[in-house]
């Protein structure tokens, strides 16, 4: 039985990854999870300089999910290269670094630094964070802007690039096609859905940022639909995510067309869930006599 999956020429031991922003750089969860068992750790977004993020409250619970408006707080690429990369290199797991920026130059600066580090398998370009006012999502909601930044980043990237797409658009396949046309090697979807919560007793917003990105099991059907539509629209591989909490959820995304999957908010609910999903996928493959994980990709019957 072979659980390997390959994206843009990079092979991962299994399709289970961590969704950016929910797992730090793995340090905090290494106490719960054997990182060696994961296909890849996708890091929290890193920018060229430290970002302080948004005021608190930054998180709120909603029915079947949560809202966050962290605002991409990160220590900047210098600290990341000195601390986080050496930490991750101790493990036999793929390293995918999520890159954020306010301008094209910011993204390029980070991508160039990461090019020095051969242990980094792929770069995930965050053009879809709904919680920062400049950059990020501004590049991810218009097809021509997405095309331009993808092309620019691709020029400087030493590793294959994954464009992380926003679901907060009219037609995600239009965005996916633009990224593919500009040279993206893979796609990640979906980022969080923009939401809002109001505390009716205090008559205030639950988040200081007013709006936040919704994640968790409640968004899963939307994410599965978008992965399916996108897989039909492009040839490049997809990392599927959005509300995955167990192996069946993961397989649903793979059948819809994802070559790998990421677990996000559920890490907060069950810190062991990534490892449990790896085991669960293996059990599923055994139960249904699936020889290669890749046989399941996009294998939903039409």
């Amino acid at each position, binding site marked *: 039985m072979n659980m390997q999956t390959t994206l843009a020429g990079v092979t991962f031991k299994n399709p289970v990854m961590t969704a950016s*922003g*929910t*797992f*730090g750089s793995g340090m*905090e*969860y290494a*106490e*719960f999870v054997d990182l060696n068992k994961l296909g890849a750790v996708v890091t*929290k977004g890193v920018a060229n300089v*430290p*970002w*302080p*993020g948004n005021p*608190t*409250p*930054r*998180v*709120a*619970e909603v*029915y*079947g*999910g*949560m809202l*966050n408006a*962290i605002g991409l*707080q990160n*220590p*900047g690429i210098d*600290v990341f290269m000195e601390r986080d990369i050496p930490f991750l290199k101790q493990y036999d797991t793929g390293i995918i670094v999520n890159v954020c920026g306010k301008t094209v130059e910011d993204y390029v600066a980070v991508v160039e630094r990461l090019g020095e580090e051969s242990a980094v398998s792929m770069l995930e370009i965050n053009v879809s964070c709904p919680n920062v006012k400049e950059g990020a999502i501004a590049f991810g909601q218009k097809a021509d802007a997405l095309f331009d930044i993808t092309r620019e980043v691709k020029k400087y990237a030493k590793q294959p690039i994954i464009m992380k797409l926003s679901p907060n658009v009219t037609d995600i396949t239009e965005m996916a096609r633009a990224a593919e046309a500009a040279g993206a090697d893979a796609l990640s979807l979906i980022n969080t859905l923009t939401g809002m919560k109001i505390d009716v007793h205090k008559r205030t917003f639950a988040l200081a940022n007013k709006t936040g990105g919704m994640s*968790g*099991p409640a968004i899963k059907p939307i994410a599965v639909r978008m992965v399916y539509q996108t897989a039909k629209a492009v040839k490049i591989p997809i990392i599927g995510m959005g509300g995955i909490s167990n192996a069946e959820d993961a397989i649903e995304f793979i059948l819809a067309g994802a070559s790998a999957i990421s677990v996000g*908010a*559920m*890490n*907060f*609910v*069950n*810190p*062991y869930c990534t490892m449990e999903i790896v085991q669960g996928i293996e059990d599923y493959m055994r139960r249904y006599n699936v020889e290669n994980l890749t046989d399941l990709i996009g294998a939903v019957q039409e």
Partner: protein
Amino acid sequence: MKEKHTARVLSQKEAAPMIFDMWIETELAKQALPGQFICVYTKDKSALLPRPISICEVNEDKTALRIVYRIAGQGTKEFSSYQAGDSIAILGTLGNGFPKDKAVGKKVFLMGGGIGVPPILQLAKEMDAEKQIIVGYRDGNLFLKEDLDKYGRVYVATEDGSVGTKGNVMDAIAAEALEADMIFACGPMPMLRAIKRYAEDKGIDAYISLEEHMACGVGACLGCVVKTSEVDHHSHVHNARICTDGPVFEAKEVDI
């Protein structure tokens, strides 16, 4: 070592209106420190995130933890329905705890306000110092007061004036003309701000326990940060994580 597991409820009672007092049998009791907290998960799958609740007491055998919490929403309401023998999913032990060793031989204030009173109990139990315990309540429902009496002189303030000094814990300090070399406190933000100012005026150290909405509880999500006066060692910006760098901070280190 942090761990999530299913533990067993040993007992539960209502300590005051909307305030519940639960003992949980768990191995986490072995490592629990005063001022640390646990995350408690609901059985209701629509409510995903764990509820951070401070550790109130550890039993003598270190086989059980006591939590005393207020019903604040649907999650804590569910917990309040648990009875002896029920299972309860918890993650712990989390956070740094109070630096109680700094108090050895000193004259201290141990201050708790409202639902910030519970962590003061285990701290009072373990602390080797001249303890003046100052607790503030809304009214005459003085939950944990009798437990605290065993570990030091207790001064009470109530908002409605029904017991002790009318007002808050700062009013009690003034009314009783109390003095200390060091403060340890947990309570609502206005109280912690007043303590921070008081400690600065008096030139003494104060250690305060903060709270914030949390998601992961283990330092990964960066949801529960507090502004810090210096650049934080982990974030490299002026933000520390309350769940892992705290919840206890030296008052002068945080910008509250």
